[in-house]
């Protein structure tokens, strides 16, 4: 089977005051469809950077990147944005819900960018509210929710358009452990249903939910370990 993601010799450089600073060095890796992968590593290792590149938010790097066989490194910005829009959902550490939109409206955003017709949009949002057990919260604003609830909406927003891949940068970083566990369980269910997931985390417990852990350090991939003792 064709890998979902294939990176070859990916490099990312920041130039500051004439000197070059490598954030990612010769990163090569493959991620299969349906895989649940964790990036770990010390602060500043380049995890978030790598995630943005995979998420196609960042286009300035060198090397090769195939997404589902498509050569991302050859696509122009517009094509890349389309690929991103169609296949990838994001979950952020600090949720990043939009303050002055209700839960319902927040969930609608990704759909509106895909030009999903209104009626279908409403039914999709209702669906997901139901699935995530947050129907009662649909008319509340983000600041009326707890952190855990906000992240729940954040995940719901990432899945609503049924992406092939979910990227989550420290999704439980701002949550206490019980809430964090709830989110991880959610990820596991989503993964079992077929969605590929890449998460960044500092927590061994969270890493235990994934199939594979990739360690980064100073921009290098230093190790890959399959997770034998996977939770569940």
């Amino acid at each position, binding site marked *: 089977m064709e890998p979902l993601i294939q990176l070859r010799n990916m490099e990312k450089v920041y130039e500051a005051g004439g000197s070059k600073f490598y954030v990612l060095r010769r990163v090569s890796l493959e991620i299969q469809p349906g895989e649940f992968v964790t990036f770990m590593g010390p602060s500043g290792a380049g995890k978030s950077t790598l995630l943005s590149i995979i998420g196609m938010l960042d286009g300035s790097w060198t090397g090769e990147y195939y997404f589902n066989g498509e050569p991302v490194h050859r696509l122009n910005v517009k094509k890349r944005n389309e690929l991103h829009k169609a296949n990838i959902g994001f979950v*952020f550490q600090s949720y990043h819900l939009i303050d002055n939109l209700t839960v319902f409206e927040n969930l609608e955003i990704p759909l509106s960018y895909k030009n999903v017709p209104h009626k279908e949009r409403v039914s999709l949002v209702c669906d997901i509210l139901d699935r995530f057990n947050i129907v009662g919260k649909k008319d509340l604003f983000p600041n009326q929710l707890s952190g855990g609830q906000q992240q729940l909406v954040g995940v719901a*927003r990432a899945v609503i358009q049924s992406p092939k891949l979910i990227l989550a940068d420290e999704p439980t970083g701002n949550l206490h452990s019980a809430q964090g566990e709830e989110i991880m369980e959610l990820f596991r269910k989503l993964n079992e249903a077929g969605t590929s997931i890449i998460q960044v985390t500092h927590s061994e417990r969270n890493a235990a939910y994934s199939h594979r852990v990739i360690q980064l350090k100073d921009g290098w991939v230093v190790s890959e370990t399959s997770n034998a003792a996977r939770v569940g």
Partner: protein
Amino acid sequence: MSSLWQDIRYALRMLANKPAFTLVAVLTLALGIGATSAVFSVVDRILFRSLPYSHDEQLVSVGLFAPIEPREFMLAKDYLEWRAEQKPFESMTTFTPGGADCDLTGQNPVRLNCALVESTFLTTFGIEPILGRNFTKEEDRPHAPRVALITYGLWRSRFAGDPAVVGRSISVDGQPTTVVGVLPAEFEMPTPGKADMLVPQALDEASLEGNGPQGILRAFARLKPGVTIAQSLRALEPLFERSLPQYGPEFRDGLRLSVRSLRDRQVADSKGASWVLLGSVMAVLLVACTNVANLLLARTNSRQKELAVRAALGASRARLARQNLTESLLLGIIGGTIGCWLAYSLLQLFESIAPEGIPHLQQASLDARVVLFTVGVSLVSGTLFGLAPAMRHPAPEVLAGKASRQTSGGLLRQILVASQVAISLILLTGAGLLLHSLWRLEAVPLGMDTESVMTSRITLAKYRYPSQQSQVAFFKELLSRLRQMPGIIAIGISDTLPPFGGSMATTYSHIEAPARPSVPNGGGGMVGWRSVTPGYFSALGVPIVRGRAFSEADTGPSENPVILSEALAKRLFPGEDPLGRSLRMEREGPWRQVVGIAADVRNNGLREPSDPEYYVPWKMDPAGHFQEGYITLRTAIHPETVAKRLRQETARLDPSVPVTMQTMKQRVGKLSERPRFNAMLLTLFAGMGVLMAGIGIYGVVGFLVSQRTREIGVRLALGASPRTIMKMVMANVARWTIAGALLGLLGSWYALKLLRSLLFEVSVRDPWPAAAALLLLLIAAFLAAWVPARRAMRVDPIEALRYE
């Protein structure tokens, strides 16, 4: 005290740290304060400030009001009767309109303006001479020894402020005249126009009792205490009824009695424009205030976190408010200082470009009250808006990192911007209307060719040219000398000059023409006439459409030709050939032969419809008027060169004759000077309004974008394309701009009625200026929003999302 000093230092540092904010705030304040103060200083004199007469609210202008004359007048005979019998006034007085040219003769002769006033003039107006005394009743009679009161200015300039001038005899028009007093420095005539000297008008009261010729007078009165204008009108009604029968039926219908306050009379034609200017400059001030408020609001919003931290560290709300206030005040002081300077410069600019006839412009000065008021208004509003968010937002929420919903501050700002847009649209539409009207006014066909025409008005002093013969001889001699000048294509003399008619007119019904359809006596309207030399038509470029112009042969004493204007010919001889027909223009006048038809020429200014008119030859005639003449020169060379030669030739003939010269273009241009002035100012204000609205929009969008950077980043990560983001931002701007524009259109519907009296051949409801204004404003709004909106498009999602 030290904490205040600390506040000031901190505020100064804040202002210095944000130069763009400070610059915009200070400039906005300066513009608003400057323009408002300058305009207010001008219209204050016209609309509000008391006139330089004691108890000026009691002073009224009294007389009859006829449709052909915009100001009250009285016939001398009526006046004597009214003065004797009236009840509502403490006193009544008159002067002779126009005054008289008078020459201070002796060494260094100069021409002055003498006002001919009644002996009660000063007492009625409540003016005391600073030296000497008023005229006595005896001096105000015909053939009394000649006396004069001189103005302060003349006293200082001509007599070096010498107190001994009182009682001295000076030579006026070659006759000894005794100076009886000096007027105070603040003296001014109640009517526009300047007087250097007051001399008794010396009404011949005895002869007026009979049926002698009737002079026209301007009458003024002082109301008795407690009597209103309406009461005085009622009280005078019987006297008015009694005077009516002596007027011909052609006048009687339009006549009415008029008593109005002196101020109303003085500012009659400036009033509308003054209110419009005041209104529009107030609107500019409002927009400026809104801008400052908007800036401070943004400022406070963006410092919420800082304020919250300070509050958490123990600062009281009052302390925080004071910090804000210090900043606002500093801004106000800087803006106000620049604003004062701007107001001062603007006022000088007004004085230099203002057309003649704006009352009191020369005396307008920057008023401290006005400046304080405008500075106050802009600051208070700014501070209120600046403080509001500081007082409202509960601190803990901000600190907890749960950013509260930002809509409230943002909403207020957007409402402010919408109102700026509304006000600017009204101003722009008004300016558009005035410009359109000006364009119409300047496009009025004059019926003559004004290119390369120099005109010159020459007035002969009566004491040097006492007889008609001597007057005619002077002009004839001058004409023959000017003919020798090189570069002259045509030259003419006339007693009056378009685009005005002058005072010579008769009623249509007086003209005796065999073929004319009958007209009731006194009916048919006015017909003007001029006496002109043969060269007049070609000098002015007035086409002779049939027949011929006058020739030298027509100036013979027994020749009586007449040239009709096309309009008159059409009315007198409908469907017939007027050439060769005979006419009598007035009852006792000679029969005249029609020799030509001239094209119609504007003769009532640009605004009023022209009257039909006719021309007779300029030549010696007891009924003619030769003390004043207009010389019209059409040249092939530069008109200024001709002007110089003309001056030289006149001086060679008689150096004491003053010459005033204007090109025909300047003469016509004078007529649209005031509309141009109004249009220019309103356009200036509208421009300022739009500029400030643009700044407002720029600020709000910039604020919106910077506040929502994170949100934009999220949206980009969720799949929005940069174009979608741009659209989102622009849609937000469009919503408020369009709301403001609709409000503005609605506002114009009401506000622009004020403009009605200033418009010429343009309706206040003319849709084009509104449409143009709308378009212009939307473009400006779009551009103002475009720059920060593009910044939104370029938000880097990684950057935006990286930091919490």
